[in-house]
């Protein structure tokens, strides 16, 4: 048995195809990105080594910091909205009729492509024929904003479809975690006279804290690298008002042909994501995980 199942050739045959693919197409490009960041390069001609210049430029680049600020705002909004999803899941998981159907309905936006969502919400936000302003006007708002065209509003306007897209995903995860809590624990608390609120906050929430922490990391990291929907909806505009790190990087490389600088920003995006992951994990870490 052991001899057959530890034959090196056969192991190689089974693991190498997948391993080589992720090495060549995921990990080597990551390292190369850091390396290309050291170059002055237009993507076509020869590369010229310029040391850390691109990285120093990035640190002094106001547009980069502005886009980073927008990415972090999205991360903040996404993380805070988790509280709402948690509340919805608590209600949903408390033996409500139709909860299975409801959570599937919540999931629908998650199944759509970011391009389709972006195009749909461009229409929703349309100043004269979109549903949003139609509702606002019928509610008596005189001059509803032109959402995507106003620099002061656009960033928060595009957060709405992003949250809309992912709400069902987090509700689904919380719901599954809550359903995993053994009924006997909740029953015991109820017999001891705990109110539904006490059961929710003193028993259920602490028991799913592990899952909540994972979702915080997911929401924050997912937000920092967010791209598709913003790129399609506004292209980072008007005038950089909705630019995020990934869209700024993409623009530098594939519109301005500044591949060296774009690579440097791409590599910084990786570093920032890694640091934030570690920090969020540390901040939310507790000494002992609760068990049931």
């Amino acid at each position, binding site marked *: *048995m*052991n001899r*057959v*199942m*530890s034959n*090196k050739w*056969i192991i190689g045959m*089974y*693991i190498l*195809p*997948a391993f080589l*693919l*992720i090495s060549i*197409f*995921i990990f*080597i*490009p*990551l390292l*190369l990105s850091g390396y*290309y960041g050291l170059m002055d390069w237009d993507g076509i001609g020869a590369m010229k080594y310029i040391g850390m210049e691109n990285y120093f430029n990035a640190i002094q680049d106001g547009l980069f910091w502005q886009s980073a600020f927008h990415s972090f705002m999205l991360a903040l909004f996404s993380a805070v909205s988790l509280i709402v999803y948690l509340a*919805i899941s608590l*209600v*949903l998981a408390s033996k*409500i009729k139709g909860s299975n159907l409801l*959570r599937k309905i*919540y*999931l*629908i936006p*998650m*199944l*759509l*492509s*970011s*391009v*389709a969502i972006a*195009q*749909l919400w461009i*229409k*929703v936000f349309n100043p004269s*024929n979109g*549903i949003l302003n*139609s509702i606002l006007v019928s509610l008596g708002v005189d001059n509803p904003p032109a959402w995507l065209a106003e620099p002061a509003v656009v960033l928060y306007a595009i957060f709405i479809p992003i949250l*809309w897209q992912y*709400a069902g*995903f987090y509700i689904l995860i919380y719901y599954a975690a809550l359903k995993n809590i053994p009924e006997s624990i909740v029953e015991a608390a109820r017999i001891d006279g705990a109110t539904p609120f006490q059961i929710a906050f003193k028993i259920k929430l602490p028991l799913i804290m592990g899952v909540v922490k994972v979702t915080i990391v*997911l*929401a924050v990291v997912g937000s*920092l*690298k967010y*791209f*598709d929907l913003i790129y*399609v909806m506004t292209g980072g505009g008007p005038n950089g008002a909705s630019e995020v790190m990934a869209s700024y990087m993409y623009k530098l*490389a*594939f519109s301005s042909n500044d*591949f060296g600088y774009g*690579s440097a920003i791409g*590599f910084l995006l*990786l570093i920032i*994501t890694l640091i934030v*992951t570690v920090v969020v994990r540390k901040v939310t870490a507790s000494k002992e995980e609760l068990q049931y």
Partner: protein
Amino acid sequence: MKRVGYMLLYVCLIVVAVFQVFPVLWLFLFSLKNNQEIFSKSPFSLPSEFRWENYLKVWDSGIGSYFWNSVWITGVAIVFTVLLASMAAFAITRMQWKGSKLVLGLFMVGLMIPIHSSIIPLFNMFLNVNMIDNPWSIVITYTAYNLPITLMILLGFYYTLPREIEEAAIMDGCSVHRIFFKIIFPMTIPVISTTVIINMIYNWNEFVFVNTFISSDEYKTLTVGIQNFIGQYMTDWGAIGATLIISMLPILLAFLFFSNKVVEGISSSAVKG
């Protein structure tokens, strides 16, 4: 009092549900209207007649070809991903070798990385081997980037398969390949169907790789194709609506028939986000 509170919570849940589906329903409504109706009537009004010709018009003027590109690229990438991830899961969970933990760790890390940190070198790589504007660059990229998540979903199932299966098979003189292809792989069909659906959603909806690597119209997939297409039809809302509904339909149909698989897959893909 308790009943009132319960009703109130229920109403909240239904409001959220309406918020989640209403934009899509509205899209479907205006995909059946013409511009005259859209601009002169309330956006909530029903179409005066169902203008299915909007769908025929956009299908014939290019969306059809984007659609078939999406179908074959999604399909071929799924076959590669599921086969290679199954083989890797088999090697990692069933065979004994040093370094299996390390390799597994690398796949885990692969779940977390932002694709924008790798896309420039990837673009350059394909440029150097003359594979820019070649749909196979997309197939390979989808396969590589979906391997980690597919492997994660498969692993849980592989760990639960009893060891006695291989022990008995080896006693009978079965080769490793026969064990994998004839015994283990068929046993994992339930979890494979989950990974197929998850891969289908990811591949069908992917945008950045196609937008970056493909420039010819003939190779574009739906997500990128509709982007260009809508550019041309900027003012024809009915055509835009029909295009978007066509692009959403395959996934929504899959969801209608296999919603439990989708739910299962998305829950277990929580690590990806």
